[in-house]
């Protein structure tokens, strides 16, 4: 069994002026080469947890954070946003639902990639950018390098977001709703991409989504969160076959009944 690359211990997060307690006493670990799914409804604290891991707490309006985050053997206090931010792009990368929306629309993809490469890997080469685009499944990388993000479809933009995340050669990729709101065929191809990256790079992936079907097909283990707390965790097959908590059971059954009308197909 491989050792953990990331350990979260006793994480608590308070948000905003009202200091609402959005994550409570959360413990979990992510092993090397593992895909760990975090599922739950909106407001469960999934994304807040992800943001806290890479020091986005200060930006995300976190009033206070307690607990420890250990990455590759190095333990950092959850409230130390600056040190956590140092992990960003140096060991941990993140892809979100609309990652590319946060990037400047006036620069070409090639410039964005080479600049990122220079910043995180001192490797400002177009060749490397081209390799990354091939790795995420583009067959004509040169055309993508010369494009602006608005010229690409949502699915292509999301692939570019993965290429940008890979530029830093991360050991951990946090994927926060990476396929939400995409067409289902695109979703399936991005799921295959993540699975391939895990295999070829031995990367660990923290996959956050409200879609239990995505967790069911992707994750080795899954955590279920509700109102900031960990409800239950376990190997995915086991969790789906025999959920221990009534809330988990309710989520799983709702997910099944949603597909009920397709059972005949």
């Amino acid at each position, binding site marked *: 069994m491989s050792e953990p690359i990331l350990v979260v211990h006793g994480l608590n997060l308070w948000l905003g002026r009202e200091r609402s307690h959005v994550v409570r006493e959360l413990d979990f670990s992510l092993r090397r*080469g593992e895909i760990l799914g975090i599922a739950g409804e*909106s407001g469960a604290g999934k994304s807040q947890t992800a943001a806290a891991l890479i020091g986005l707490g200060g930006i995300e309006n976190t009033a206070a954070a307690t607990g420890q985050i250990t990455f590759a053997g190095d333990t950092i206090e959850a409230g130390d946003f600056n040190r956590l931010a140092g992990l960003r792009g140096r060991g941990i990368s993140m892809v979100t639902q609309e990652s590319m929306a946060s990037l400047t629309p006036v620069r070409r993809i090639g410039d964005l990639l080479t600049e990122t490469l220079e910043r995180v890997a001192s490797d400002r080469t177009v060749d490397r950018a081209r390799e990354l685009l091939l790795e995420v499944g583009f067959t004509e990388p040169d055309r993508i390098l010369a494009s602006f993000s608005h010229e690409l479809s949502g699915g292509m933009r999301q692939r570019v977001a993965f290429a940008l995340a890979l530029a830093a050669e991360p050991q951990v990729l946090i994927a926060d709703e990476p396929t939400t709101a995409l*067409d*289902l065929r695109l979703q399936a191809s991005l799921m295959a991409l993540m699975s*391939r990256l895990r295999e070829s790079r031995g990367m660990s992936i923290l996959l956050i989504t409200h879609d239990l079907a995505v967790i069911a097909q992707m994750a080795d283990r899954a955590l279920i969160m509700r109102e900031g707390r960990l409800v239950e965790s376990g190997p995915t097959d086991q969790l789906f076959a025999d959920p221990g908590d009534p809330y988990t059971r309710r989520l799983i059954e709702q*997910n099944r009944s*949603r*597909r009920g009308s397709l059972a005949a197909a």
Partner: protein
Amino acid sequence: MPLLEVSGLTVTFQASRRTESSVTAVADLDLEIEAGEVVALVGESGSGKTTLARSIVRLIEPTSGTIRFDGVDLNGLKARELAALRSRIGFVMQDSVTALNPRRVLLSSISSPLESKRSLGRSQREELAAKSLERVGLPVTFGGKRPGEISGGQRQRAAIARAIVTEPDLLICDEPLAGLDLMTESRMLEVLKEATRETACLFITHDLCLAANVADRIAVMEQGRIIEEGPAVELLSRPAHPHTRALIEAIPPADPDSTWRDRHGIASSVQPPFDAAT
């Protein structure tokens, strides 16, 4: 006579002034919706669903073809006649954030479609708006809130409340539930089913599961055309068109399924079994 009758509808956009190339978003499309019927329009992004919806309410001017609503050809109507017909069509847009005026309180946004009805005074309009809020399961006190003060799911409800306040004969919903978690989605589905019990509905989605849950009939759209349509259950159990089959095949199963994973190139765990305790 169908409530809505779209025939030979074509919408062409000028893609680039530089190259003078154009894109046909909707191509010679026919669609009928009977009174009270719920029809799901399913397709991937770029297939022309939203353009079709917007053309029906003439937010987009069709290039050719006709749209009849309750027997009346919308083409050639005077602005005032068009406005009167439009008040019988409710529209829930994709993005509830932009659908509601951020500076107005909800009661004012929700009652604004009633402003064209001269017979109604302000207090009557607000009374109907409050009733509309109740129908979508929001407390009447929410009428005093602004969109920024409520959650995404609540905003989506408010957008539906606004669309049904005129008691329209046809409700057009463009991806009204996209990105919502399952619990919120199923609550919203109940709200929509309640709202469309006596109202015809064109329900636009990229998600066949959702379509199967709400619709009597499903029409599948690809590259501006309807490639297949039929009763929901039949279409899903015996899809005739390869594109429809591909869309169904892309839906991930609810439970871990190695056959589906293999077919989509998703490797199962490369790890030894994990200890559940840690």
